[in-house]
């Protein structure tokens, strides 16, 4: 298992953003769904080692991120796209991707080829030498994805990766996700249930800091059948039904 979380909790003051999450994930694409404030971003930030948990156990790629040496090893093998991508406006796309390749401790000789490959994979080859400040939102998102995959990560964490991408780019991106899922654990946090249906083998639904559903997209669809839950597509109805069921249990 590349991700093993046991009773993982993160508090911000009195607010429990993540409240005792248990999760195991091996290679494949794993979708993380949930409404705003469900705790998806906090969970992803903890798995990216950017945010320490308040309590609980976390093992990533078979290592303990709480210790310096293993944490550094995890980070070398990690790709992370945050929800809000900070960038250096004066950098070109190639310089931006190269910067993070170097910070990931990639061997310098491998960096130029890896940068070129990552930029091509996200379809930004024609803008590789363009300054980031000249790019559209969708292109910036793709530059962010390129930096996340530049080191061929074994654990790829993507927070709202398809935000700002047009339909054609989304289709290409899902193909890229499926390709990465063959050899790595890809965890995608998204609001877009169609992304989950198209690319993910497993899905977890979060609400109030907890995982309230964990299964396959087909199982989530089954939750919605005959439930009368709101939604235009089967997966949306499954999402609504699972969420409603979890909330009624919590309220009881």
């Amino acid at each position, binding site marked *: 298992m590349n991700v093993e979380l046991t009773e993982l909790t993160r508090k911000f003051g009195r607010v429990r953003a993540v409240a005792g999450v248990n999760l195991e994930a091996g290679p494949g694409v794993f979708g993380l769904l949930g409404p705003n404030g469900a705790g998806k971003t906090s969970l992803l930030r903890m798995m*990216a*080692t*950017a*945010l*320490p*948990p308040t309590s*609980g*156990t*976390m*093992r990533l790629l078979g290592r*303990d*991120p*709480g*210790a310096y040496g293993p*944490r*550094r090893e995890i*980070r*070398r093998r*990690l790709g*992370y796209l*945050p929800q*809000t*991508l*900070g*960038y*250096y*406006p004066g950098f070109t796309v*190639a*310089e931006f991707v*190269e*910067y*993070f390749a*170097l*910070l*990931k*401790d990639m061997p*310098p000789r491998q*960096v*130029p*080829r890896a*940068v*070129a*490959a990552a*930029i*091509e994979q996200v379809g930004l*080859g024609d803008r*590789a*030498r363009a300054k980031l400040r000249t790019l559209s939102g969708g292109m910036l998102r793709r530059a962010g994805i390129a*930096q996340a995959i530049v080191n061929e990560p074994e654990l790829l964490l993507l927070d709202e990766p398809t935000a700002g991408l047009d339909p054609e780019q989304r289709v290409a991106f899902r193909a890229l996700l499926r390709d990465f899922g063959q050899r790595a654990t890809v965890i995608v946090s998204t609001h877009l249930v169609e992304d989950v249906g198209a690319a993910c083998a497993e899905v977890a639904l979060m609400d109030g800091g907890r995982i309230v559903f964990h299964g396959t997209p087909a199982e989530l669809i089954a939750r919605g059948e005959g439930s009368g839950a709101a939604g235009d597509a089967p997966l949306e109805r499954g999402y609504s039904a699972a969420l409603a069921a979890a909330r009624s249990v919590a309220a009881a």
Partner: protein
Amino acid sequence: MSSDDLLTGGHRDAGPHDVDLDRVWLGVAEQVWRRRPGPVERAAGRLLRSPGLARALVTTPSLLLGWVIATAVVLIAGVGFTLGTGQPWVALLAPAVAAAGIAYAYGPGIDPAWELSLSMAVSDRIVLLVRALAVFGLNAALGLVASAASGAAAAVTFGWLVPMTAVCALALAAATVTRSPNVGVAAGSAGWLIAILAGQAADGRFTTVVTDSSLFLPYLAFAACCCAVVLAATRIPRGTR
């Protein structure tokens, strides 16, 4: 017409069939997009034994050319005032200027990709340390040149380096704890101003703050405390398992 056709002018039999065009293109792109590090970055890479750290160092906001020029202009103005008034303005300005540079060296308030940097193998704490030391070193060098150019007495020329250490450490600690470079600048400048005014109140000379060697030990102790605060603020707690 396919890309193979474009390569062979439509004469498929004339071209090699085992050419992997994607691979060829990647080789071309690699060469075309490759960035050549400048001499400073190459030297830093050798010194730090980490190309990533060297790259992080040369992107320090307060080491960019515009900032360095602004620092030099302030110190040149200080030289002018010192020569004109006979008061050691350089010694009083240099610590405040250095504190501003340190506060703007690294952190969530100034580094746009801070969130990403937190998940990188090259630790953000090491980046912070290296950048802060580089900014301090550059400011110390510029300040010493300006101080020497202003014809200050030797005690004044070197005396401000110790309080500068304390002021910079205060600015760094405030910027790190509050995650705001502006708060760091404000804390450093205010701390330095209070020290100058306290020195003047004690014996009527505002240069006491840089000439009284009995203050050096308290300055260094204060700087050490501030560094401890920085280390505490940037540590990732153990016990995630």
